[in-house]
Each structure stands twice: as C-alpha cells, then as structure tokens.
C-alpha cells in the first residue's frame, strides 16, 4: 500500500498591487522548504496566497492530500484574540498548561498577552502553532524577535517534524533548520534553487558563512548549524 504524499502546486500565480508584483510557479512536496528574499519582495504575500488568504490576480493553486493547514504570521500581536495568556492558548485549540510550560510563561498565564514582550509573544505563538501537526505549515518570519537560543530551539522543533509540508519564509541568514529545498524571490519572481547542497550555486541569498566555507573547499551538506559546524571541522581536519 503506497503512502499518500501531500503537495501544493502554484500554477503561474501572480499578485499585482500598485507598482509591485509577484509571480510564482512550482510544487512544494513534503519536507521543509526555505523561501528567502529581501525585505519587501513579497514573502508574506506569498505565504498568504498559499494559505488561501490573499486574492490572486491570476493563476491557481492546487492542493493534494492537504486537509489541515496553518499560517503563522510575522507579527505575533496580530494573532492575539484572547484577553489573557491562558485564553490566548485556548484560542489556538491547545492545552494552555503544556504550552505555557514549554514557552516558559506559566507564571504569566493571567496576564494580558499584550503585556508580554514581542519575543515572549512570538515564543507563545510558535509554541501554539507547533503543538499540532498540519499537512501544510506556513511560517512567516518565524525567527524574528527571537534570540539565538530560541532560534536554535525552533530549528530543532522544525527538524523533528516527520510529515507534512513546512514552508519557512524568512530573510534570516545565520540560524536555519535543515531543509529539503531552497527557493528565493528575485525581482518579483519565485525561483526554485533546488536541493542543498547543489542549490547553493544558484542561491543569490546564500548566507555568507556558506559562501566562505564553499570558497575554502568545504561545502556544507545543508544549512543547519550542525551542517556548518561539520563543514568547518572538515577544513581544520
């Protein structure tokens, strides 16, 4: 018996707004995908389009074997619908006890979510989003407002996901999870760079550390800190 694999296909989708446009084609299969690009290139818009929350100017999006999906927005305060931290957790349909414990916010459970710092609120949002399994998980700038330790924890958490499609939209350059495929938005168009490490040749937003390691003759296998460390160790012998 074959295992059904989910996928999302963008068929020449495009969005136009005043003097800005974005076009995208490609198929996202199961695994972790990284969509990079400069600020303002349309990463958030693409995430909204893939979540079905942004009207397309043209083209269409096909989803196969995707019954559950989730989009985590860049700004955590815009997700707030509860009047207390515990109520906010419950609004995501998750158990507040476990989530608050995981996010280290148990003592703040009765506080207003807006009294948390942006970093704390982001931690809470991500803990709620990652508590459930989705066929399609879209993470818009998940690393923003997090410190290095939290970024590393998030990478580990994303790496633990064994099924579904996870798409990370980010301009983060330093701490990233191991990914299946790399994409980038260049001049208003989504470009498929391929799978790492071959993708590094075509990837315009390749992190400087990968560029440096490659120049030194030790190309990393992937983009996670472990892969970079392993490549660095190879140089030192």
């Amino acid at each position, binding site marked *: 018996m074959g295992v059904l694999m989910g996928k999302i296909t963008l068929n020449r989708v495009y969005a136009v707004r005043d003097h800005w446009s974005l076009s995208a084609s490609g198929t996202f299969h199961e695994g972790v995908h990284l969509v990079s690009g400069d600020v303002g290139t349309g990463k958030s818009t693409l995430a909204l389009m893939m979540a079905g*929350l942004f009207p397309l100017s043209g083209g269409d999006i096909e989803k196969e074997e995707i019954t559950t999906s989730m*989009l985590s*927005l860049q700004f955590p305060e*815009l997700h*707030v*619908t509860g009047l207390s931290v515990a109520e906010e957790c419950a609004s*995501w*349909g998750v158990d507040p006890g476990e989530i608050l414990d995981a996010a280290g916010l148990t003592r703040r459970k009765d506080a207003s979510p807006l009294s948390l710092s942006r970093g704390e609120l982001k931690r809470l949002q991500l803990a709620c989003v990652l508590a459930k399994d989705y066929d399609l998980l879209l993470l818009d700038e998940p690393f923003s407002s997090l410190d290095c330790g939290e970024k590393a924890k998030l990478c580990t958490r994303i790496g633990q996901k064994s099924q579904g499609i996870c798409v990370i939209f980010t301009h983060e350059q330093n701490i990233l999870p191991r990914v299946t495929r790399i994409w980038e938005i260049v001049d208003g168009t989504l470009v498929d760079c391929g799978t790492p490490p071959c993708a590094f040749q075509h990837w315009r937003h390749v992190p400087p550390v990968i560029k440096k390691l490659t120049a030194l003759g030790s190309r990393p296998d992937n983009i996670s800190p472990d892969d970079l460390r392993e490549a660095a160790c190879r140089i030192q012998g």
Partner: protein
Amino acid sequence: MQDPRIRIVAAAFLSVAAFISLQGAAAAFLWWLVFTPRLQIAKRIRLVFSLILMIAFFSLVLELFGGGGLSYFSRMTVIVLIGMWVFGEQQSGEFLSISVWLFGTRIGFELGMVAEMGIQSLSLVTADLDRIRIAEKIKGMQWGVHSLVPAGLVLVHGALSRAEDTAELLAVRGYRSGGTLCPKFITGTIDCVAGLCASGVVFFALIPVSEFFILYR
C-alpha cells in the same frame, strides 16, 4: 485634481452644499460624477460601502418614525462620497504642505506634521485590522461582536506603541519645534474649473428653488 488646496476648499463647499439642501446634494453629486474618478476610488476604499449601509439604516429609522429619512440619506451619502474622494486623492505630505503654506514653518509645520501622523496612523490601523481578521480566520474563528474587545485592544496597543516610537525618534533626532519646507503646488486648468464649479454648487444650494417654482406657477 492635483492642487490639494483647491481640493480641500472644494470638498468643504460641496459638503456644506450637500448638507444644507437636497438640491445642493444633487448638484454636489453631479459635481462628483463629473470631476472625480468615482468607481476607481470606491474600489480602493471599502469602508465607504459600510458607511453608506449604516446611513441607510439610520435613514430608514428616521423615515419610519419622523420622516425626512430619504432626504437625510441622499445628503449624507453625497457627503460620504465627497469625503471618500478627498481621502482617495490625498497624497503623503500634502497636509504638511498646505499647513506650512497657510500658517508658516513654525505652527504650520507642527500642525501639518500632526495631521500627517494622524493620516498615517489611520492607514496603519486599517492594515492592522485586515491582519487581525486574517488571524481570526487562521484560528477558525468567526469575526463578530466577541472580536471587538480583543481587536480594539490590539489596535489601540499598536497605535500607542507606534506613537511612542515616533516620539522617541523625534526626540533622538533633536526635534524641538517647527521645520523647513517650501511647499509647491501644481494647479491645472481642470482644478480651477472644478473649484469654480464647486463654489457654484454652494450658491445653487442656497437658492430657494421651491419658492421659485411657486412664483413661476
């Protein structure tokens, strides 16, 4: 219309005309049809439809319980359309230019800057509201009365923190009062014609048309 000074004066004339009489509202509506891009603006400002619906509701209540609802609806709708046109045509920096032109680089600059910040804040609040509604959809929640308190809190919180950031930025840059600006305006022929017609609309609104028709009969 390129010249914001004529636009604002015309909008004031037309609003007064539409408010004081039904014939003034009709003339102002005609002016709106001739001199504005109409539907292009309506597409960009979704709020106008909700406002017209709200006016329709109050007009119906007025018509049912005291009369004059239809007149109220016509006049208020025209005022909303004029307001929508002014808001849709407004370009960033125009209030600052007009204010400096009117009141100089000290008080004028400050008044203009406050007005610009207000307009900017309004557009950011609209964008925030859109994102909040998206967030509710993501959580599988329906937008309704229960959403008003949390959404209001987020909007107020966002507006206050942005205001604080702006105040800090101005303080860090050493802003004390006033500023330097040489406002420039482009006045086209259409602007002059539209402005003159708008003043004509006010005169037309003040003419006692009903009495004229009685005399004529």
